[in-house]
């Protein structure tokens, strides 16, 4: 791979340095203002009444008892939605408030504003809804058979008659996973008194929310202004609307600011989850271990509304073979409509589920061939210049699959069991497990996904960069959700211009165009790319005006001389550049699922070492070693943060995280029972960063936020298989699965 990368200017606070984030210390001190900390004088509190049934007709709603409660300012139902009664990012199929029927447990039916939160909640509970419950459709296979399909993705590649010497087959399942972002949904809507509204909210994409909110309110888009409030994590949970329209409706109706904060239980109903998946795979290889044919059938439960089910199942299908070459492929995937809570975006977006399946298959193949499992992967590893086995797209950017595999395989294994501290044993301080009951296992997995939006989506990011008296100012609507984007944009600006003083100014929807979503691992490459382009323009204009060859905070230099001090340079005003940055265009799939559908790819590998108490089925993940293809680590500390956090999210899905559904009703909508790993469950993570520059984006950097989550889960489960000798085809693996007690 030879990609020309602009040489960065050597400057303190520039790229490649682990500089501190501006929000780090305030967050540690509890001083950071999250969207749940917003306040306005005379504000009301909102609350939502939600369906207790997964499916029911609504025969009547009586709000009189709620309205009669002192302090209640408004009670609104579907009839009060001023504009489009439906919303949805891809397809407008979800009612703002339920119309005549509810289709999932937790669907919003009515909203209330009152003087305080408790009164609002009491009033919501006082609304009387007459439901006629119907039999819910909760089985994804049944839904598929009944034709309840959001999108069916088909891939057929190569000679369908090809057969291998060795065949392995398996059926795998992954559970619904919650994003478990620590900040629940929250926001504040402030009416402007002239029919418009300002909405301050935590979201991943202001502009796509804005479009839907304005439509549902029936207002011109310029009188609805959206502002990013402090976001407490996202992971996909904030890609679809939750309380945005509700807040604006209540504020416009009452003429007063209205605030809402979901509690944890409501948050589980208020956002989408990772699609649970049932997957069948058949892998065929020749005796040397070369993949010959892969077949897969994937069913993803999309739940009651479309959300992003379409692109999620497309991803699942396109990445169903993983980062491997294979001449013959057939994949059928469907995302189906059921009466389960809606599923949608979560870190890894369809690539997580299939990776659990295809990596288990690669291990089975290795066993069937009598080959080392790393060797089988290396033999088939996809590289730049190859065609993707599914879509046949030629990979023109970097893709160091073999390098990530080799790097991880070469890392030293951790020391033997430390039996001194019970916290390092399975069962932890529960003191369940003597050292003699422990078996160690090692598992390996490789993950693969595209970066940014695909399949003809007009993916762009706007920024406005100005060189002014205060230094470089960057205006963007891109959502900082805690990942460190603001920091990295500053680093890109410094390394591009030579100016040390940089400020990133969050912009509302009225001030600048869309930056696209903070998802699909795309912001560093997209908004970062936009900053890089705009800064280059600003720099060349400054050098032209100043008559020199180098820019610093002092001004323009020629050789060793300051030829135009900054004051003179900006005497006629700031130097500004506005950019709309796009990645290479993508195509729509043809009838075989072929085409140049993606803008770029990244790959990662994980090796997990686990200690397992097989008799009790308890696991301690000891260490995870990983190598990831990051293009260029613009801020190594941030990159490691993403790797450690993403890896742990994958550990969660491997051994504990699961949204439990019973006939469409969520049984564990609290952090008491939806378990995520604690610090004592967190393994040591050792990471190697592979820097092979990408063909587009700033300084060769690649989006890398999702990759760490993808291969972590299959690596951990493979390690548990190795320790326990059991098949373990479902994630999360539960103690009873390992102990073999059913």
């Amino acid at each position: 791979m030879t990609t020309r990368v602009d040489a960065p200017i050597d400057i303190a606070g520039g790229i490649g340095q682990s500089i501190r984030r501006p929000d780090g210390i305030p967050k540690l001190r509890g001083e950071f203002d999250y969207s749940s900390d917003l306040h306005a004088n005379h504000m009301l509190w909102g609350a939502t009444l939600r369906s207790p049934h997964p499916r029911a007709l609504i025969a009547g709603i009586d709000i009189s008892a709620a309205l009669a409660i002192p302090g209640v300012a408004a009670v609104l139902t579907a009839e009060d939605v001023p504009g489009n009664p439906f919303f949805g990012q891809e397809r407008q199929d979800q009612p703002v408030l339920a119309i005549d029927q509810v289709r999932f447990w937790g669907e919003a039916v009515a909203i209330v504003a009152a003087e305080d939160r408790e009164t609002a909640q009491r009033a919501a509970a006082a609304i009387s809804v007459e439901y006629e419950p119907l039999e819910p459709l909760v089985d994804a296979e049944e839904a598929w058979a009944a034709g309840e399909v959001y999108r069916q993705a088909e891939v057929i590649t190569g000679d369908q008659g090809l057969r291998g010497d060795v065949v392995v087959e398996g059926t795998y399942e992954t559970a619904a996973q919650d994003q478990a972002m620590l900040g629940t949904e929250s926001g504040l809507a402030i009416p402007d008194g002239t029919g418009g509204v300002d909405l301050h909210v935590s979201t991943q994409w202001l502009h796509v929310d804005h479009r839907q909110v304005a439509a549902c309110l029936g207002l011109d888009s310029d009188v609805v202004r959206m502002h990013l409030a402090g976001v407490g994590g996202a992971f996909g949970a904030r890609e679809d609307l939750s309380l945005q329209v509700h807040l604006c409706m209540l504020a416009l109706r009452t003429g007063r600011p209205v605030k809402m904060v979901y509690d944890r239980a409501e948050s589980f109903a208020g956002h989408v989850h990772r699609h649970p998946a049932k997957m069948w795979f058949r892998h065929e290889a020749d005796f040397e271990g070369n993949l010959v044919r892969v077949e897969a059938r994937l069913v993803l439960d999309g739940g009651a509304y479309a959300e992003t089910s379409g692109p999620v199942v497309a991803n699942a299908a396109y990445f169903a073979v993983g980062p491997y070459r294979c001449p013959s492929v057939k994949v059928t995937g469907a995302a189906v409509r059921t009466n389960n809570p809606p599923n949608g975006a979560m870190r890894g977006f369809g690539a997580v589920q299939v990776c659990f399946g295809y990596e288990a298959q690669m291990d089975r193949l290795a066993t069937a061939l009598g080959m080392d499992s790393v060797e089988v992967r290396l033999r088939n590893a996809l590289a730049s210049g190859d065609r993707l086995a599914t879509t046949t797209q030629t990979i023109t950017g970097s893709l160091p699959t073999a390098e990530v595999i080799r790097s991880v395989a070469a890392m030293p294994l951790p020391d033997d069991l430390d039996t001194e501290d019970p916290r390092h044993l399975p069962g932890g301080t529960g003191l369940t497990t003597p050292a003699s009951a422990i078996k160690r296992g090692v598992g390996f997995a490789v993950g693969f996904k595209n970066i940014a939006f695909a399949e003809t989506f007009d993916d762009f990011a706007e920024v406005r960069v100005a060189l002014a008296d205060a230094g470089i100012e960057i205006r963007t609507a891109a959502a900082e959700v805690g990942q460190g984007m603001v920091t990295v944009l500053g680093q890109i600006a410094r390394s591009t211009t030579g100016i040390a003083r940089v400020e990133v100014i969050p912009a509302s929807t009225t001030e600048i165009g869309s930056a696209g979503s903070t998802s699909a691992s795309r912001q560093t490459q997209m908004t970062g790319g936009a900053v890089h382009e705009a800064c280059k323009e600003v720099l060349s204009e400054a050098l032209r005006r100043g008559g020199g060859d180098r820019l610093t905070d002092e001004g323009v230099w020629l050789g060793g001389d300051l030829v135009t001090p900054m004051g003179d340079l900006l005497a006629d005003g700031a130097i500004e550049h506005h950019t709309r940055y796009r990645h290479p265009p993508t195509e729509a799939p043809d009838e075989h699922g072929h085409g140049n559908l993606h803008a770029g790819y990244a790959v990662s590998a994980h090796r997990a070492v686990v200690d397992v108490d097989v008799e009790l089925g308890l696991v301690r993940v000891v260490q995870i070693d990983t190598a990831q293809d990051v293009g260029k680590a613009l801020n190594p500390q941030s990159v490691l943060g993403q790797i450690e956090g993403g890896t742990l999210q994958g550990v969660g899905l491997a051994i504990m995280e699961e949204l439990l559904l019973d006939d469409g009703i969520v049984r564990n909508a609290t952090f008491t029972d939806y378990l995520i790993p604690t610090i004592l469950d967190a393994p040591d993570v050792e990471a190697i960063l592979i820097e092979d520059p990408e063909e587009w984006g700033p300084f060769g950097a690649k989006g890398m936020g999702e990759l760490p989550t993808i291969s972590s889960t299959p690596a951990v489960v493979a390690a548990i298989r190795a320790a326990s000798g059991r098949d373990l085809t479902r994630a999360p693996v539960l103690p009873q699965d390992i102990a073999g007690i059913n």
Partner: protein
Amino acid sequence: METVLATSLDEALDALTADPGATVLAGGTDLMVSVAYGDLRPSSVVSVRRIPDLHRLDDSFVGAAVTWAELERGPWPAFAEAARTAGSPQIRAVGTLGGNLGTASPAGDGLPFLAAIDAEVVLVSRAGTRSLPWHEFITGPKSTALGAGEIILGASIPPISGKQAFAKVGARSAMAISIASACLLRDDAGSTRIALGSVGPKPMRARRAEEMISAEHSPSSAAIDEFARLVTEEVTPIDDHRSTAAYRRHAAGVISRRLLERCLP
């Protein structure tokens, strides 16, 4: 809601008598969860944390306001092991034995030790003081014999010799609600008691298993297996969203065997 921060037993008992809808508050780690989720709306709250009588901790008594953190450093090794498994450092700093008894969850981690050692729960009210054996105080899942106007003073602990150990199976390494727990006591003569949590509607003793193993001075591995098997027969676990009855039964047997092995010379 009104809150009384009682600094003496008298003050607390007065407040409880004055408002029959009053609820006792200790560390609040159970109570405030119920309030936050709208399951409980007490008309008033009487905080008992400042009452000196409830802080007694010596070889024969644990006051109701004694925290998990204090029990971790207390005189009973198995009780300390149990306390160490409760919640997180923050929960252990404020959660109390009185609250664990008051909640009487089948998964309460303080309860197997009390059951194994045959503790009595001491209750005080305007009518006087009474003591109830643990199994009479805990009447069912999350239900107790605590009467109106009554406060838990603490638990009286009979003297004990020999070895003792506790184990708890949870779904993660910390902050885990017990899926199965057990406390085993064995004296030098071999007399053995085992109490289990989360495998029945309330903490329970496996009496047949106790009887069988107490007769074995130096049990063979077959005897140890038989002890564990009897435990699995005696427990009465259920399926719920945290685990399955079958796994809980299995786990109860495994940890009972391992606890016994820990307590053998």
